């Protein structure tokens, strides 16, 4: 197993440009520990990602940082404000795009943004200008006066991102920003997020359970069962998994495993679908020498670059999966169905 400590890279702690500091955060709900003693920092102007399955504690942590839930213990600071003491100052400095749509679909895009601007006390003279500015950012300026109910899922999500920006927050939180969207729309959302980082002085904190997507982050925390299993840049995390993944199907898998163990000191076992799966530093060098003396007949051999999915599998021993739907989850599914109508 991998020693996790080596893979936690929290950057230089003496750096002054920390925007979020979380220390020994614990959150318990009755007898369930949703967040189990986690610590991490987020730096100004980075895209920081939380990667993990549903129920890992991602949303709970975000809700605590956003002052929607009180921590059971530990300290959380955002922009140097404490979540317990300076709630309203924190609320003023953040924008939040929720997992579930919170737009009023009988109102127009402009009305939705206007309400938000009023709640955040954006100066009256500025509101019109800012609405145009954020709509332009997400390419919705032409739809300004359209009812939100006529928007597609991707447009709604873009509008929510625009709404989260209208009061010029220091940190924008995006909780599963691409959930429920088709792959093409998802890519566009990511393009907007990258553009946002480039053009604005803003820190982006996002969660996702799509492996591919977390690769746009500057740093990723892999979170599972309320703990941070690893925190590093996507490139460094991928190194943890070993560089290449090889899967083999042979006529006699147990002999193959023995052969791998004796000749290459690779410990492996049979995975699902009768595959033998293991990692090597460089598959192009490994495969020729492996094939040359292999005593078993190989039916198929496949080599590929490791992905964050492999990192997750390595660190937690399981694949990112969807949890069973709780009653709240059922309400959420219902809510989404309503929004899509």
């Amino acid at each position, binding site marked *: 197993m991998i020693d996790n400590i080596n893979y936690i890279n929290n950057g230089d702690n003496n750096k002054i440009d920390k925007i979020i500091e979380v220390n020994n955060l614990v959150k318990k709900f009755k007898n369930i520990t949703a967040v189990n003693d986690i610590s991490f920092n987020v730096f100004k102007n980075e895209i920081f990602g939380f990667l993990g399955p549903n129920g890992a504690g991602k949303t709970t942590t975000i809700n605590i940082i956003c*002052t929607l839930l009180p921590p059971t213990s530990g300290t959380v600071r955002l922009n140097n404000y404490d979540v317990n003491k300076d709630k*309203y100052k924190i609320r003023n400095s953040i924008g939040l795009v929720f997992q579930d749509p919170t737009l*009023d679909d*009988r109102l127009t895009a402009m*009305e939705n943004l206007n*309400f*938000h601007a*009023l*709640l*955040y006390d954006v100066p009256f003279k500025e509101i019109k200008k800012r609405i145009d500015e954020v709509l332009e950012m997400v390419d919705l300026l032409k739809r300004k006066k359209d009812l939100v109910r006529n928007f597609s899922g991707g447009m709604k999500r873009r509008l929510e991102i625009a709404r989260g920006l209208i009061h010029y927050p220091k940190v924008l939180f995006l909780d599963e920003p691409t959930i429920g969207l088709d792959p093409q729309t998802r890519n566009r959302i990511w393009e907007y997020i990258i553009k946002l980082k480039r053009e604005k002085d803003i820190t982006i904190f996002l969660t996702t359970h799509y492996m591919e997507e977390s690769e746009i982050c500057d740093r990723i925390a892999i979170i599972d069962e309320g703990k941070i299993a690893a925190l590093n840049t996507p490139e460094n995390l991928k190194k943890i998994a070993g560089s290449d993944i090889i899967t083999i199907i042979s006529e006699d898998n147990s002999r193959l495993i023995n052969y791998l163990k004796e000749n290459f000191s690779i410990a492996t076992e049979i995975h699902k679908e009768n595959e033998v799966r293991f990692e090597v530093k460089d598959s192009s060098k490994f495969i020729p020498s492996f094939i040359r003396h292999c005593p078993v007949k190989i039916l198929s051999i496949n080599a590929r670059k490791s992905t964050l999915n492999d990192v997750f599998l390595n660190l937690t021993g399981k694949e990112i999966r969807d949890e069973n739907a709780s009653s709240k989850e059922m309400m959420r599914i219902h809510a989404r169905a309503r929004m899509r109508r």
Partner: protein
Amino acid sequence: MRKELLGVYTIWLRDIKKFFRDRPRIIGSIAQPALFLFVLGSGLASSFQLFGGGGGQQFLAFMFPGIISMTVLFTAFFSAMSIVWDREFGFLKEVLVSPISRTSIVVGKNLGGSTVAMIQGLIILAFAPIVKININIISILKLVPATFLAAMAVSSFGIALAAKLKSMQAFQVLTNFILMPMFFLSGALFPLTNAPQWLKFLARINPLSYSVDMLRTIIIGKNITQLHPLNIDILVTLGITAVMSAIGIILFNLQD
């Protein structure tokens, strides 16, 4: 302070805008009371004649303010209860993370829901000529604050309940076990003056009976079904509004 007032205004305005955009809801808000008044009301009125009583027309006149009360009460209650849903999956979630105090959110929601309930109640006044009730400009001027006050009482009660509710299922239970009995015992559908003592007692401790009595006295004047003097009705309704609003504000602030 300016900021908080702006927050209250924003939350209020959103409820109003949503109401006027929702055409099916406006139609429903007219159709349902019409159904109660003309189908149920006319049916009941004629059944009294069948059993030997007179006064079918008086019954309709009696029921008319009851139907207005019903509309106001149910609209205000459901609006308050929408908080349960809205807090998890709607606009309210967005409001709760904004820098607006919980007090302003409760006040804004209360005023918004009550305004919509008042408008819906006043729309029904259009049926007055059909049940042969004279509505003059004075009684309308009295009814505007009166329906608003009745709505505020229920709305603040609903908000205080919603603060404690975690799921929509609990809301169904509350509707069946709290709202319906309170409605039946409010004197909206049948007069309580001639009711058995135990019913009368239950009605007296039912805060809704005071709002219904208030609206009825304003609409049809002094009548045999009146339970209390008008000023008592107004004072009790004001008192309930004040107490329930305070509880709602405290509960929401505690949860922050």
